């Protein structure tokens, strides 16, 4: 196992390198230039010399190979440099938002697991009854509804109900405060985006749980368990669910990694200062350094999540052993 972990960690290197090369090339294929964008801002004419000076300051006048090697070298030393747009250290910019994004991703994942596994299970066990239809309707709605739209509905609902109840409308707070500083304040801010994204996320996982469980319930070993006279609850929980969870864990892992960098629109709706927003801003501003750092972060999260999923696999299914 130890050997396996080391091997997996070493395998991260080529993955990250590939991602680095890809994002480096793609960013430079986009027409436009961070210096031009920064200078032009509002006014019309800018001195080409000033732009040139800016490019020299940011190191953009060097050859691509040198720029790339510089980027990799910085990455190896965990020195991500400064944002080309704001000039502030990238580590600082990211860590400001990372906490919030991580918290929402974790809460959404928790929401999804707590909804998906019980709902998917009951739906499979009561296949083709009204319970099954209700769960399937609920999850289809979750897939069909974009989470930002659900977010808008939640905000509108909050405004209307709080106005009706307390006389003045209430909105979730906008400024992020860590959970351990003020839990109530923190949760009142994060719970709604987490529910909005978690619902959609749970819909996919519910359907996966249902179909995986339906398949497992037809397996011979479930028939054996019934023939042994076990109670239904035990058959489902001990014999069927453990076998059915593999694909569900995969889905949950992928979705979690996606949430860490992909909540662009939902963050917009709830006015959250998360990684998604930073990502979009850095791309539109041609902030190469920032975009590169963010892509590397998201890739690392994906690789790490996959790794965790693999470990969970081995725990769920003893036939899976890694060497």
């Amino acid at each position: 196992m130890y050997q396996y972990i080391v091997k997996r960690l070493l395998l991260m290197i080529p993955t990250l390198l590939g991602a680095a090369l890809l994002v480096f090339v793609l960013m430079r294929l986009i027409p436009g230039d961070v210096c031009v964008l920064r200078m032009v801002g509002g006014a019309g004419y800018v001195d080409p010399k000033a732009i040139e000076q800016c490019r020299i300051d940011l190191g953009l006048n060097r050859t691509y190979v040198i720029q790339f090697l510089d980027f990799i070298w910085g990455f190896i030393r965990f020195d991500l440099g400064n944002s080309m747009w704001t000039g502030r250290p990238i580590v600082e910019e990211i860590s400001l938002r990372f906490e919030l994004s991580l918290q929402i991703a974790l809460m959404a994942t928790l929401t999804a697991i707590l909804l998906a596994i019980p709902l998917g299970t009951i739906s499979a066990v009561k296949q083709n009854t009204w319970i099954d239809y209700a769960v399937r309707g609920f999850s289809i709605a979750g897939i069909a509804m974009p989470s930002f739209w659900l977010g808008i509905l939640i905000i509108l609902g909050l405004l209307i109900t709080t106005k009706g109840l307390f006389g003045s409308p209430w909105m979730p707070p906008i400024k992020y405060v860590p959970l351990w500083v003020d839990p109530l304040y923190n949760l009142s801010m994060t719970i709604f985006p987490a529910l909005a994204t978690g619902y959609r996320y749970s819909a996919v996982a519910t359907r996966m749980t249902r179909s995986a469980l339906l398949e497992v319930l037809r397996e011979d070993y479930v028939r054996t368990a019934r023939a042994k006279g076990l109670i239904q609850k035990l058959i489902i929980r001990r014999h069927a669910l453990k076998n059915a969870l593999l694909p569900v864990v995969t889905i949950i892992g992928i979705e979690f990694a996606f949430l860490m960098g992909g909540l662009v629109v939902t963050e917009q709706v709830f006015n959250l200062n998360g990684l998604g927003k930073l990502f979009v801003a850095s791309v539109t501003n041609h902030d190469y350094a920032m975009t590169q750092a963010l892509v590397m972060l998201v890739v690392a999260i994906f690789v790490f999540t996959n790794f965790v999923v693999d470990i969970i696999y081995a725990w769920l299914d003893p036939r899976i052993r890694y060497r």
Partner: protein
Amino acid sequence: MVARARRGAADEPGHGWGTVAKLLEIDGLRTQFLTSAGVIKAVDGISYDVNEGETIAIVGESGCGKSISALSILRLIPNPPGRIVGGSIRFRGRDLLQLSEEEIRNVRGRDIAMVFQEPMTSLNPVLTVGRQLTETLQQHLNMTREQANARAAELLGMVGIAEPERRLKQYPHHFSGGMRQRVMIAMALCCDPKLIIADEPTTALDVTIQAQILELMKDLTRRLGVALIVITHNLGIVARYADRVNVMYAGKIIESGPAAEIYRDPQHPYTLALLRSVPRMDQPRRARLDPVRGQPPDLSRLGDGCAFAPRCGFAVARCSRETPQLAPAGAPGHIAACWESERVSGALKRAS
């Protein structure tokens, strides 16, 4: 082979007729499947008894309803699409079909246990063998974890698995096919059942392992006084291990009697055809074996008359209009559903 089975029957008059307490009485059992193609009468009115400690074989081709009839006993037919639509299954006087869900659950695994065909897929791959043994003990006998573990190790030893304590902690994929089937047998034995139903217990195993498993089952059921229903398409098993045989065709029992009698003097053309399709030690060697010609009928559209008639060499005009009922034929205790049984009976002797 046959000589042994005959001697077995003669040695033990107790395994005969009506002298021993009836353990299981199946009467007019009918199980159907509702499919888009129509109603499939998988089991269509079968009746037979099993006495205490007796071994009964149910023989027939694939798709004749033998497995379904066995699963029906413990009400393990997946519903939908399957449904038991008629008959009664009396186990020690209680009709299993009338029991509540909880009551039948207490019969399953405790009074009546099953051994399935595929030891590869019938054990749960993600639970240790020990867990799969102890959970039955904990469920039915309210044993503590320690008691159940001790009993599970004892059971593994009984079915001939070495180092039982160590192997309890292993998963099914650490066991070979034959070993897994031993585990299945241990599982079936764990609550001292009165009856074990073995659905093709050796079909998925190597021939050499088959004999070991069957000997083990025969030995244990004898020793523990457990009755056994063996479902098989292998007539060799029947001859060697069964006291009595029911031959099934198209959801019905078409011949029934002591194993030795069925072998010596089959009364139904289908049984005769089955016997001719396997090599026999007690008959002169023929140049080649005779497979049963034609295909089993489609159970969703059975018409009037004998279901075997289209494949039967003895068929007369009446066979396609009327369905023959089971009637005494040949030796006492031997019944067959064929009105031409005398001609059939002569055929085997003439051939030899």
